[in-house]
C-alpha cells in the first residue's frame, strides 16, 4: 500500500478517515502539491475515506439543457454565452423531448435527472417550462429531478420546492479570489446568496466548479475550502474543456496528474459529500484516469452526454462500475 511520506499529512488524512471532518486549507494545499509518486497514496486514502463515509454506491445522473445558448452572462469558459463568438445557437427543448430525455436517463439506472438552462436566472417563460416539464416527468418517469437555472429569487426557490425539485445545482465555479477574472457580469456573492436560499429551503445543495480555469494551486485549495464551508450535498467536478469562441478557447487542458491530485484533495476536504465526475473528464483523464478517480474518491458520475458536448456512452461507464464492483445507487435509497 503506497504511503504519504509527510508524517504530519498522513496523520491529518487518518484523522479525516476517523472523524469524517475534512482537511484544513494548509493540508489541502499539501495534497495538491504532492509529488507524482505519491498521487497513488492520496487516491487510495481518498477512496478509503469515501467508502467509510459514503459507502460503496455510485450515484448516476443524466443532464439535459432545456434552454441552450444566448446567455447574457460572460462566464469565460462557457460556449453558451451570447457575448462570445461561439458557434452554439439558442434553442429550447420542448416538454415531450424533455420527458424523453428523462426516460433515456432513467433507462441507464440513473436516479438523478438534472434540467439545466443557460440563463442568468429564470424568467416567467422558463419557470413555466420548468413547472410543466417537472410535472410531465413526474407523471411518466421514476427519477429524482434536479434543476440548474442560475441565480434565483426567494419566490423561485419556494416554487421549485413546491413542484418537487429535490436538488438545486449552482456552481461557485472557482475560488472567490479568481472569480472576477472568470465572470464579470455577476459576482461570487450573488451565487452564494442563491445557495444560501436553496439550503434554507430544504432542497439539496449541489455546488462545484471547474478546474483548469487558470487558478493557482493556492486558489484550488481556497476553492476546496470554500466549498467545504458550504457543506454541499453534492460537488460536481468539471475539468475545463476549452470551447471554440470563448475567452478560454486556447487554455491548456489540465494535466491528468493534477486532476487526480484534485480528486483526492476534494474528497479529503469533503469526506461526506457526493463527489461527482462532471464535464471534461474524457479529455483530461481519458479511460484510465476515469477509473483512477473512481478508485480515488469519486462516488458519482454524469453518464451520457453533457449540455453542449458529448460524453462516453453510458454503458461504458456502467460497465466500468460493474468491473470495479461499485453498485449503482438505487432510487429507493435516494427518495
Amino acid at each position: 500500500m503506497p504511503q504519504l511520506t509527510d508524517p504530519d499529512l498522513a496523520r491529518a488524512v487518518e484523522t479525516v478517515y476517523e472523524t469524517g471532518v475534512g482537511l484544513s486549507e494548509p493540508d489541502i494545499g499539501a495534497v495538491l502539491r504532492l509529488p507524482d509518486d505519491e498521487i497513488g497514496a492520496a487516491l487510495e486514502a481518498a477512496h478509503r475515506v469515501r467508502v467509510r463515509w459514503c459507502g460503496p454506491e455510485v450515484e448516476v445522473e443524466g443532464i439535459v439543457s432545456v434552454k441552450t445558448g444566448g446567455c447574457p452572462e460572460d462566464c469565460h469558459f462557457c460556449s453558451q454565452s451570447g457575448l462570445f463568438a461561439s458557434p452554439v445557437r439558442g434553442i429550447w427543448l420542448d416538454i415531450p423531448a424533455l420527458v424523453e430525455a428523462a426516460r433515456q436517463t432513467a433507462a441507464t439506472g440513473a436516479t438523478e435527472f438534472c434540467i439545466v438552462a443557460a440563463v442568468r436566472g429564470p424568467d416567467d417563460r422558463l419557470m413555466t417550462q420548468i413547472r410543466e416539464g417537472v410535472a410531465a416527468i413526474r407523471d411518466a418517469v421514476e427519477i429524482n429531478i434536479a434543476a440548474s437555472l442560475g441565480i434565483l429569487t426567494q419566490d423561485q426557490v419556494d416554487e421549485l420546492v413546491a413542484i418537487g425539485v429535490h436538488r438545486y445545482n449552482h456552481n461557485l465555479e472557482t475560488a472567490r479570489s479568481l472569480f472576477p477574472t472568470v465572470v464579470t457580469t455577476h459576482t461570487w456573492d450573488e451565487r452564494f446568496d442563491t445557495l444560501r436560499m436553496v439550503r434554507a429551503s430544504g432542497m439539496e445543495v449541489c455546488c462545484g466548479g471547474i478546474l483548469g480555469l487558470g487558478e493557482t494551486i493556492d486558489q484550488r485549495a481556497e476553492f476546496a475550502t470554500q466549498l467545504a464551508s458550504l457543506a454541499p450535498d453534492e460537488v460536481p467536478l468539471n475539468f475545463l474543456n476549452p470551447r471554440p469562441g470563448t475567452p478560454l478557447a486556447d487554455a491548456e487542458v489540465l494535466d491528468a496528474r493534477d486532476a487526480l491530485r484534485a480528486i483526492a484533495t476534494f474528497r479529503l476536504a469533503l469526506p461526506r459529500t457526493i463527489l461527482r465526475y462532471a464535464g471534461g473528464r474524457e479529455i483530461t483523464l481519458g479511460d484510465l484516469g476515469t477509473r483512477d478517480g473512481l478508485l480515488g474518491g469519486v462516488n458519482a458520475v454524469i453518464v451520457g452526454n453533457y449540455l453542449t458536448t458529448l460524453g462516453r456512452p453510458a454503458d461504458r461507464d456502467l460497465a466500468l462500475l460493474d468491473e470495479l464492483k461499485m453498485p449503482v445507487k438505487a432510487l429507493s435509497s435516494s427518495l
Partner: protein
Amino acid sequence: MIETGTWCDRCGGAIGEHGHAACVSARALEPPRYCGHCRRRLKVQVLPAGWRAACVEHGLISS
C-alpha cells in the same frame, strides 16, 4: 465524423483548405455546429443519449 459536403461541420472552414484532423478528432466528443453543405450554423440540441441538429436550409440531422 464530418458530414459529406463542402464545409467542416465543426469549425465551418472549407474542407479542401486543411485536413481538419483536429476537428475530426474533436467531433468524437462534440455534435456538429455547422452545416456541411452550406456552412450555416446549426441549431443543436444535445440529449443524454444523442443529439439532433437543424439547418434552416438543409433540414434535420441526428446522431
